[in-house]
């Protein structure tokens, strides 16, 4: 290691820890026995919210399942955020929305998970709109009267008729300091919440 001036001259610097960018609270919370839909464009904080939920559930000694339609989950950043990976079942569906829905249905039918997340965020919205509404109603029926949370991540709201809570994620700003990327700030806006 040299002096800061020398390191700057060489163009290399030790990477600092990123700033804390958790989604601390959500309007209405994630409700057990119901579908919560999180939608938003790429980079709007959907994954941050998902990882915050996984961390919260695994910290309660419960098990989680992530049905990852497009193999986009990053175990490293999840573990860095505090998710207990040994409590996480990860199903990679290789871009097949049908397999992802079927896998989520099987996991809900099997029961015992504190949270089942269905990540459809990288799939083509056109393909998602072609999913018959009956599939969403089937998922809602499967989760009713169970202590499981079903999170659906997507780009546009496709499961909203069946969702009890619908959140729209919006990116506010990226945080930079001294030319270093520190993290991002997001906002979660509740678009739908069934009165309890």
């Amino acid at each position, binding site marked *: 290691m040299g002096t800061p001036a020398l390191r700057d001259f060489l163009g290399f610097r030790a990477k600092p820890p990123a700033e804390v960018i958790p989604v601390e609270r959500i309007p209405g919370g*994630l409700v057990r026995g119901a579908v919560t839909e999180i939608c938003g464009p790429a980079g709007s904080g959907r994954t941050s919210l998902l990882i915050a939920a996984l961390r*919260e559930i695994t910290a309660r000694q419960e098990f989680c399942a992530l049905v990852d339609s497009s193999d986009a989950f990053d175990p490293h950043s999840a573990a860095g955020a505090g998710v207990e990976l040994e409590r996480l079942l990860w199903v990679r569906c290789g871009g097949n929305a049908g397999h992802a829905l079927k896998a989520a249905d099987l996991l809900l039918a099997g029961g015992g998970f504190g949270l089942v997340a269905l990540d459809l965020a990288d799939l083509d919205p056109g393909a998602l709109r072609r999913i018959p509404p009956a599939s969403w109603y089937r998922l809602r029926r499967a989760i009713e009267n169970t202590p499981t949370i079903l999170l659906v991540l997507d780009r546009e709201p496709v499961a909203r008729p069946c969702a009890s809570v619908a959140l729209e994620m919006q990116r506010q700003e990226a945080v930079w300091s001294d030319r270093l990327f520190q993290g991002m700030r997001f906002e979660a806006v509740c678009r739908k919440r069934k009165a309890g």
Partner: protein
Amino acid sequence: MFAALHSPDSSFPLLECARSFSPFVERSSGQTVVFDISSRNALERLQKLCAGAAAGVSAAVARNPDTAIYAARGLGGFTRIAPGREAEALRNLPLGLLGAAPGIRETLERWGVRTFGELGALPEKGIVERLGAEGGRLRKLARGEFERPLVPPEDEPRFEEEMDLEHPLELLEPLSFLLARLLDQLLKRVEAVAALRLRLTLENGAAHERSLRLPVPMRDPRTLLKLLQLYLQAHPPEAPIVKVWISAEASKPRALQHGLFLPLAPEPDQLELTLARIASLAGEANVGSPELCDTHRPGAFVMRRFAATRSLNRRSTLSAAYRTAGRPLGRAPSGTSGGLGPVFPQASRVEAVKAAPDRWPPYREPPQRVFRPPRQADGIWRNVVQAAGPWRTSGDWWTADPWARDQWDVALADGSLYRIFRDLASERWFLEASYD
């Protein structure tokens, strides 16, 4: 004294020969048996047996079992090693005979250690410091100094059922009936099944085998049958079936005391079935629990078998229950009567804010969505408004698969943020992940 008898020919009756010398016989791996031998007559008989037997049969007598085994495997013929001369006798044997774990073997090869003698000549303290207790054990084995008692195998009862078919079976449905019948017969004899082995003999003479290791002992024939059906659907035999053989590894049934305050967990029987069903959809390699590898290679992980056992509860379940009970609970929305309450606290208007460190431990990295494999970014032009980097990393240069790269975090004009890198070997650009 201990004698080892080795034959590369699997048809040679090693066990019977050894039992003619001693009732205490240990079957070692790789067509070798070892037994205790004491009388001069027995030694002479063993020497004659070795000389008169078919080519390739070798025997060795030494002060400890492992020295006798290595000498029989490596020296050939009949060898008698006098006490105190073990290291000298084993000196020229190749290190591959030692049966070291692949990681240790690779390390020793990199050190240039090729024979028992070279390993035995290394200082014990240095070996243990670098390779741990296993390294010390291997050094003792190489010097012929490792002492242990014989471990004669126990004959375990075998639970098997088989059925020869008059007509070859081609369809899964009639096969399921047969499997159900065989499983019923098996489960009458065992309390619970820890593992199942299925062997289907095919019309073309080939065998189709599957071993099914269960996470917990099971005794529900329907669950076991369904697991076999799912396997056969995913891996159908390539020819009609003429014989069905099934074997069970018996175990004690699972006894479990449920508690009021235990956290939610899937039932192991049901989970196994669910995982098998999902694996038949998505592929076995795509279902599991990620485990990070002990390496600096970016994104390295392996998929482990997911096991929802309560033994994962590292903290006490009672304290977990108190922690859960301490969280704010609320009512579920109408129509969701099963709700136990929101996971996150209620708030009328919420913004994602920088968290208090005591409540949320800092992220090492903001959450990302990765592109697998990384997308080639050569020829893609976007307006980068801010960038951080490069972070130069490299590793595994001592293996056949080295990596070296310069990494940047970039913000584009549309507000999106990406992690990109330049592979230093190919000098190409890649898009690795987007921050989300």
